[in-house]
């Protein structure tokens, strides 16, 4: 596989996961698919960081997990967003917007 896809920036993973889950419960593989497709294959999520991040977020109460069946009738762990997670998503989006607008200003200024 080519390395042309950008690995997700450190620190934005939480934001992306929460955003992915804000539309409904997904399993880990579904999250990677969502991020890849929604970004037009620009971004991809490294499996090596996805699962530790998911479990950490579960500990923090941002997401909750449940075993369920996929459309292919396989057992998978589905993650969904909690109230605290939604709150966090709003905060992260806010700061992301500030960051990007800041960066945008700098770029335009240059």
């Amino acid at each position: 596989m080519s390395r042309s896809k950008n690995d997700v920036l450190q620190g934005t993973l939480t934001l992306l996961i929460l955003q992915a889950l804000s539309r409904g419960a997904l399993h880990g593989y579904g999250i990677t698919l969502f991020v890849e497709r929604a970004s037009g294959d620009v971004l991809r999520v490294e499996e090596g960081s996805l699962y530790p991040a998911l479990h950490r977020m579960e500990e923090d109460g941002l997401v909750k997990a449940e075993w369920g069946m996929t459309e292919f009738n396989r057992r998978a762990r589905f993650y969904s967003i909690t109230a605290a997670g939604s709150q966090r998503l709003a905060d992260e989006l806010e700061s992301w917007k500030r960051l990007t607008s800041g960066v945008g200003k700098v770029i335009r200024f240059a």
Partner: protein
Amino acid sequence: MIRRLLETLFPRRDNAAIDDELEFHIAMRAREFESGGLTPAEAQREARKKFGGQSTLREQTREAHVYRTVETLLREARYSFRALAKRPALWVAGTLTLALGIGANLAIFAIVDALLLRPLPIPEPDRFFVIAERRNGAHTGGNVPRMRAYAQADSLESIGGFFSERVAVIAGDGSRGLKTLRTSGDVLSAFGYKLAAGRNFTEAERNGDGNAVLLGHFYWQREFAAATDVIGKTLQTQNGALQIVGILPPEASLIEDHDIWLPSLASVQNGPATAGYLQVITRLKPGINPARANAQLGAAAGQFPEIAARLTPLNDVVASEAQTPLLLLVSVVVTLLLVACANLAGLLIARNSERARELSIRLSIGAGRWDLLRLLFMEALWIAAVGGGLGVLAGKWVLDVILAYRPADLLLASTIQLDWRAFIVAFLLTCFSALFAGLLPAWQAARSRQRTGRLRNTLVAGQIAVSMILVSTAILLVNTLLTARQRPFGFVRDHVVAIEFDMPWSTDGDKVKRFYDSVEAAARELPGVRAAGIVDRLPLQGGAQGYTYTRIRGVTLDDAIARRVVGLRAISNGYFSTLRIPLLRGRLAEPPHREIVINETFAKRYFGAADPIGASISFSRPTAEPKWYVVVGVVGDVARSAMDPAFPAETFVHHSLTYWPQGTLVIHGEGDPETLLRAALARVYQVDPYVLTKFSGTLDAKLESSWSEPNLLTSLVAATALLAMLLVSLGVYGVAASAVRSRTREFGVRAALGATPRMLASLSLSQGLRLATIGGVIGLAGAFAVPPLISAIIPGRSSFQAAELASSIAAMIALALLASIGPARRAARVDPAITLRHD
């Protein structure tokens, strides 16, 4: 909820679950690659490669849990410790409350464990049994001829019998009594002890020949400084020189400590097969079913009329005495712990509601409900842990106090201790307390932070209910004890001294009679003495000797009445005048003749309205030729035991017509009893310098010991009830105080609208009153479970008296009012102006 909580507190995310999750992801990736044109095998490999080392990933995923959790727990533990450290009142009240509850439970557990639960401190206790013998259904001691018959059973490996007495050892200028185990058969092997040194008794020695003696471990350590060369040395006793042949191991002193073991004299061992002085024990052969041994024993017992024999575990023997009082104590201390936990829960609820603002900030900045729960629970855990630690110390102290006042004849007493089993119990109790006292308030605070008042009120009402049961039990016991002490006993005890002799059971009968006559005569000559007499056993000291078959010449008695137990006291005539027991009819017996004196109860039972004087009665066995006594007099009834209000039917014969070497000299004299006692003892030692005395002192002091067991039990229950009341008053105070705090504004408005301070105070008082009434009524219902327990300990008490219940309720209500007075005064002083500014 519990599962989730446990998972949060003790993370145990197993690898399999994480693997499952990752496996799914790999499978999906592989499917993706496969649709991209790879073969299934290549797709698998490629998908796995993308994951890198699966085990590394698994570890990272896992660590996300463990590190987070451990780190969080440590941080929260530190945080809650610091938060608690700023609340010394909560610390002190919480930990001390729990320490008391846990300590009391530990002490009682140690006793229950040693007496009822733990295996006996003897080798292979499963094979060790007491042979319990019954005559016509009533307990009876054994004797050597019967023991030898049981020994024929081939399922027994060894059998032995023993009784305790004291043997006087002559040392220097006087004699000292050694607590002696008089053995028949092979007691050492039946217990299964291995001697620390020397040899067991030989067959001939066991039967009473020779002069061999075994030393008890502690006696050997004390008197011989644990010297190893004592074997072969001699011990001088009043019966001659004894040769030391062996030293017993320390465990032989655990069930009951004896200074020396000495075979019974042949003359005692060869006594009649109807006597009952021996405790018979046995060890079964390995692998023998006790049922088989029981069948053989039953057959062997069959050759003796009216006798039945049965194997009984020693624990059961101890339990038959101790079980009911211990059950009562266990219920009492568990109740105390519940009250203590409820109190701690109340304290924590109050604490949490004061932190409502902090908690809501935590919630709003993203803390989960479970985080809050954990944080709040952590405080309870700290308090429980420290309380449990202090509880062990408290338990040690309580146990020491109880043991100091224990009944003197308690078996296994030296094995009562706080050991690792007690520590496990302490740990469990601590966990229980933390869960009970911590979870409820934490759960509630994390959940809603509403209605804390209702939960607290429920807790306090529950406390009152439970304490009410304790208090009513204590009042019942105290009342019973006081009533028992004030009822008529049938004799007068003031200005009487008693000297209880302890002559060996092998003492010659004529010698005993001469000794009694001499000391009685000597006592009468002392200045100021009004009367002196001999009795085999004092009143209130339980049953003495007795008969189980009564005949009246010329009258056919109903068999059931004939077989009722009749007490026998061996006396000299001076006994009646010394204790001022009235002669109601006839005269006292004149010794050489076979004359007998009966008491009122006996006269009523066997003669009814007829005149018993001149009748002939006999107590010989039904199969034997009757030996008649002539009734010459009737005396007043005397109580037999301290707590049993019933008067037993009793008969009195002169001591020279029977044999009882452990009699008591009683003397009624004017002046200082101590002076009289010293003079009397001097005369006694003139008669026999080596005689041993079990007791010498005032009759009052002697009889006081009859109450030691009910006294101990009553004091323990009463002390627990007082503690519970203290805790309840703290609980009520807490509720009332926080209610006044939270209703300050309301009170202010009321005051502004014209409510008088008195009205405000009564508003506050009425809450305590309501709780006490609700709790009291619930407690009243619970109290009805108590009397059956009590009646098993105290004969004749089967229900509460109305006054006892009424005073318990009154006590709880008074307590609740008292505890609410402080807060009520604060409510009364609420100033409407300040209230308007109150936050």
